[in-house]
């Protein structure tokens, strides 16, 4: 079964009247004839620049925004006409909006949401215990939501969206603002949820790490149209997304050129710091480091992941030709 199906999905925003010509209104096509199919159990990363149409698409998928034209069904339902039935079968996290009760303890929010989703008392207990355990929420379960750290609140938000075991989980920038450790925990949890429950996942993000660790299919949207639909490998091949190894050397050294599978990007401080780009499909960071160590003494290193903005920019450049 297809969890998400859109056909010619379009949303046009009409702005205020033009100042020069009062009869005309500024039109902005946020989503432009989108045809999209997501099957049960898929894990899809929906990426694109700010204003590319990601959030607008999601809002139409869940029925909080009316399409200008085109058709959309989510878990087989009409999002606008069957709002409540749909709400029982999907879970949504908007990273910047909370579904928890600000003044009440986290536990109380879970309990109210369980009642909203008609879980039995027993089911509420087991499901809450399971989520509290997996997301390590025990220590702040009795804390009012307004006193949680961002990382704690995001875990609680994700748990809140999963209480009723939705078939489809939609995450809109779930890791925004989280530190490395919190991101890592959240990703591990999401991977485990998918494995156990077969939950279909659709997430928007600006974080390449989210995409790499969570998604087996990537959709890139540009000006409301699909610019890419395929696997992460395919995406990397298309744009040649490379990681960058930055090494600090003990002594100023000549440029590290002709290393296998790597390209010298530039040297700084007269060769004390050097940047090497490499394609993870051809070599590994460890192998490259070993090769560098044969030529110079390495004091420190860091690795930069390809920036999702760069990847998207490359895709845009390729498709706009």
């Amino acid at each position, binding site marked *: 079964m297809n969890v998400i199906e859109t056909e010619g999905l379009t949303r046009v*925003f009409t702005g205020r009247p033009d100042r020069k010509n009062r009869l005309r209104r500024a039109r902005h096509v946020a989503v432009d004839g989108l045809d999209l199919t997501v099957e049960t159990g898929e894990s899809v990363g929906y990426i694109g620049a700010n204003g590319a149409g990601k*959030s607008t698409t999601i*809002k139409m998928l*869940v*029925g*909080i*925004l*009316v399409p200008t034209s085109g058709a959309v069904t989510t878990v087989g339902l009409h999002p*606008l006409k069957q*709002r*409540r*039935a749909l*709400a*029982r079968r999907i879970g*949504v996290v*908007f*990273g*910047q*909006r*909370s*579904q928890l*009760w*600000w*003044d*009440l303890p986290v536990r*109380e929010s879970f*309990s*109210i949401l369980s*009642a*909203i*989703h*008609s879980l*039995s*008392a027993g089911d509420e207990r087991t499901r809450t215990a399971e989520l509290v355990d997996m997301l390590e929420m025990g220590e702040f379960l009795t804390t*009012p939501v307004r006193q949680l750290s961002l990382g704690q609140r995001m875990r609680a938000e994700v748990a809140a969206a999963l209480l009723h075991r939705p078939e489809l989980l939609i995450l*809109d*920038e779930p890791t925004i603002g989280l530190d490395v450790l919190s991101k890592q925990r959240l990703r591990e949890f999401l991977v485990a949820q998918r494995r156990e429950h077969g939950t279909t996942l659709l997430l*928007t993000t600006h974080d390449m790490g989210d995409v790499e660790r969570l998604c087996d299919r990537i959709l890139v949207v540009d000006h409301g149209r699909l610019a890419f639909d395929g696997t992460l490998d395919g995406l990397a091949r298309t744009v040649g997304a490379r990681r960058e190894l930055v090494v600090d050397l003990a002594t100023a050294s000549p440029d590290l050129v002709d290393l296998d599978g790597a390209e010298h990007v530039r040297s700084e401080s007269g060769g004390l710091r050097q940047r090497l780009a490499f394609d993870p499909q051809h070599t590994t960071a460890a192998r490259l480091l070993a090769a560098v160590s044969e030529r110079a003494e390495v004091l420190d290193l860091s690795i930069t992941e390809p920036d999702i903005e760069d990847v998207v920019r490359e895709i845009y450049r390729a498709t706009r030709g």
Partner: protein
Amino acid sequence: MRSLPPPARNPYWRFLVAGIRGQSAYPLATLAGLVANATFGLLKGGIMGAAVESSGGELAGYSAATMAAFVWLGQGMLGSVNFWGGSDLQARIKSGDVAVDFLRPVSVQAANVLTDVGKGLFALLPRGLPSVVIGVLVSSMVLPADPAAYALGLISLLLGITVSHATVYVVATTGFWLVETRGVSVLYMALSGFFAGLYTPIYLFPDWLLTLALLTPFPSMMQFPIDVLSGQVTGAAAGQHLGVQVVWLAVVLGVGHLMTRAGRRRLEVQGG
């Protein structure tokens, strides 16, 4: 026959309780509200008492004692009845957080109105009761001896609180079209208190103004509950008050329902 779920499993009951509990998180704000209530109660009591005295001890059916009851019961209701026109929903429509409301398998209107009614009910304890106690201590107000006045009065009070929050819900839903609804709130604030009997009993109005007031839901929010609670209106007349309140509740809920249904299609949630 299908049995009803226990209250803890009924989402609407939980919204009501969430309102009560949410409000209890702010004891200092509640105390400040009580101090303001009491201060304005003293001023209002002084003015209205003088008005009764200067007209020979009786004014539009009020004696000094019943006028004092009008003043202090009214002050007691101020924390529970919404006369300022703003609400959480108003803010959430503006910020787009209302999206979360629509992603729950419940009625958005019932969830919001019940949460606000819950807040209003909570305020009866730390603001309502103390105001009445202060009134009894500092004024000549008398409370009715008939238990029926209390029973009917509580129902009327509950209806009054609910009518006010259901009306403020309608104010908030104009945000689906206007986004910024402070103007509508100010209009509500100007009209509601005046026609609800917040400043003077509406029975002091000239006939044409009283007629106008009675054509609005506002007297149902405060004047009628005070009439019944104070024992000023009893028997069939009290029943009539409750009947009018029920009709207004149905009207504002109906309007709110239609506004939600139409407004939802206008909703443009900004940003992520």
